[in-house]
């Protein structure tokens, strides 16, 4: 066990998994010589060589498309997209091929590729370095999606993604890359996809969150501590979803606040709310409330704090729900 920042845990996972399996190959823009713009891939080119840690041309569809071909040659490619919004050029390959190719072969060929990228706002960056694109990925059949919020999960979920026989997208909350710090198991460490993490137990109200919104949820829970006993559920595996954990918590507390950084309409919180409206309707003691980014372009950073779901907004929603 070592204390690591979240981004260091990512780096650790890549070292361990590339060591473990010679078919794992990393490709992306600036992942090699520079070790990644966030240094998530630092040291890998030196350790595993330029053929396994590849600085590609600047072309996201080319990266993901050639990864599909590399899978056919028996590799397990890990593709880095440099930032959330710069993954959009790869959506066509993702939707038309990555999510369908196995199906198209009648299940005879696997595409064990991983796409990882830093995502999310709050980092005082120029435009398009702040998006939360999970809906585009989650809505696409044939791919799995995970978003860690702790260093240990950042390592374990990435390892699970790399080992998974299906395509997995891992979104890493860049806002907490170097603020979330915690114990990370040394060596092999796998956190299975499809299992939520109960970040905090409570009986009065559940805050459901993932990624950089988990610390926000926890701060809100702290702020509410004197008034209510708040449960925080870290979804962490968006697809497959741990529906059981969601429904169990909803049935226990009867009150659910969903937090997501992405724009509201058709965000992931909508999916969670829909599941609750279908399967927990008799458990609910009040409306299902969403605290989300707004249906507007991610703003200039001088006002981004007002856009990002804050503990204050979560507290407000929780208070309203408790008073319902």
């Amino acid at each position, binding site marked *: 066990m070592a204390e690591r920042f979240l981004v260091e845990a990512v780096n650790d996972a890549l070292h361990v998994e590339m060591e473990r399996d010679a078919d794992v*190959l990393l490709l992306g823009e600036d992942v090699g010589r520079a070790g990644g713009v966030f240094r998530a891939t630092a040291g890998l080119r030196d350790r595993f060589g330029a*053929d396994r840690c590849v600085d*590609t*041309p600047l*072309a996201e*569809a*080319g990266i*993901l*498309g*050639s*990864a*599909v*071909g*590399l*899978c*056919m*040659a*028996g*590799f397990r490619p890990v593709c880095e997209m440099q930032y959330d919004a710069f993954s959009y*050029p790869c959506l*066509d*390959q993702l939707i*038309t*091929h990555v*999510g*369908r*190719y*196995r*199906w*198209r*072969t*009648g*299940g*005879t*060929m*696997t595409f064990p590729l991983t796409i990882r990228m830093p995502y999310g706002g709050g980092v005082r960056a120029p435009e398009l370095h702040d998006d939360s694109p999970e809906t585009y990925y989650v809505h696409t*059949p*044939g791919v*799995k999606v995970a978003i860690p919020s702790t260093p240990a999960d950042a390592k374990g979920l990435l390892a699970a993604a790399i080992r*998974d*026989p*299906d395509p997995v997208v891992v979104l890493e909350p860049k806002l907490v890359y170097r603020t979330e710090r915690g114990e990370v198991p040394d060596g092999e460490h796998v956190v299975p996809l*499809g299992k939520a993490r109960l970040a905090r137990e409570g009986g009065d109200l559940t805050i459901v969150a993932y990624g950089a919104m988990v610390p926000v949820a926890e701060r809100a829970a702290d702020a509410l501590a004197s008034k209510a006993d708040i449960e925080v559920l870290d979804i962490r595996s968006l*697809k*497959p*979803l741990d*529906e059981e954990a969601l429904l169990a918590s909803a049935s226990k507390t009867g009150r659910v606040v969903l937090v997501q950084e992405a724009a509201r309409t058709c965000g992931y919180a909508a999916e969670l709310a829909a599941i609750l409206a279908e399967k927990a309707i008799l458990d609910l003691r009040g409306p299902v409330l969403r605290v989300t980014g707004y249906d507007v372009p991610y703003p200039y950073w001088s006002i981004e704090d007002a856009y990002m779901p804050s503990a204050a907004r979560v507290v407000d929603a929780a208070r309203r729900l408790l008073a319902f």
Partner: protein
Amino acid sequence: MASTIPAERGLRRVIGDDASIPDGEVDGLDDEGLLELYRSLVLLRTYDERSVIYHRQGRIGTYAIYWGHEAMQAGSFHALADDDWIFPSYRESAIGLLRGMPPATILSWWRGHPAGWWNPADYNVASICVPIATHVPHAAGLAWGKRLRGEDACAIAYFGDGATSEGAFHEGANFAAVMRAPAILFCSNNGWAISTPVSAQTRAQTLADKAIGYGIPSARVDGGDVLAVYEATRAAVARARAGEGPTFIEAVTYRAAPHATADDPSAYIDPERVEEARANECLGRYERYLRRHGLLDAELEQQLKAEAADVMRAGIAAAEAEPKPDLGLLFEHALVDPPASFQTDLAELRRILG
């Protein structure tokens, strides 16, 4: 620094015209090989012509006709080894036949039947690619992977003239070049992207000119000359195996049939050019070549065509004999490890449909 190889302006030809242009020479094919090539052409042609009829009869769905493209497909195919990978577009849907894929498989594909699914590794033939040009990066990646593994295999991707306008073509070609992937980018320039002529697709003088921008060599061949196509592909394969990276081949023909069974080209096509293309179509040209060289007579021709017709008759029968697929297939194959919800959904669906 090696000097950039400018695309050749003329179209390579091997087959003469029975008149002023004499037949050229082609390496690597003995009489047997020449006849194998013919057999492939006949099989592809028969498949195509029968498919159009099956479509009219309502036995297959919309179908992308490749009439007149057979020389590009068979010629390039025969320059490949069995380990080499093929990345077809919808236009090369039947190329798997040449690797021993049953016609019923491909017919099933056009019947929207899951028996049309295959394991690419069984034939080293990737799935038919429907979205234009998006398979070019796949071929680049596969070929790059083969190089990394130290294997000898290369990859060929087939795409059309229109495909060269897509970003996916560009990114794939560049990846192939940068990774020195043993890949052949085979452009079947049939003059049209549905109703859009190549003149509205690009201002480049030739599509082969595009290769210069990737620093890769190119060849332009007469797409109706099966031996010229063979020859150019053989050279490209040799380069690939020698570790010299990708080659771009532009094979030129004129689309003499509708884009697909759903298309009516009368609104846009030049009927004279179609007439000309049909008169000069690739199978006939090759037959005349073989006859000139004493390799084909009427009897052999009829025999091979009859054989191909039999294969197709059996093929459509087999495709039609496929049982109606169970709807459980909806939930299969997308994921190795499907979520529990798939079972619930399927159970519900079965209950409702009774």
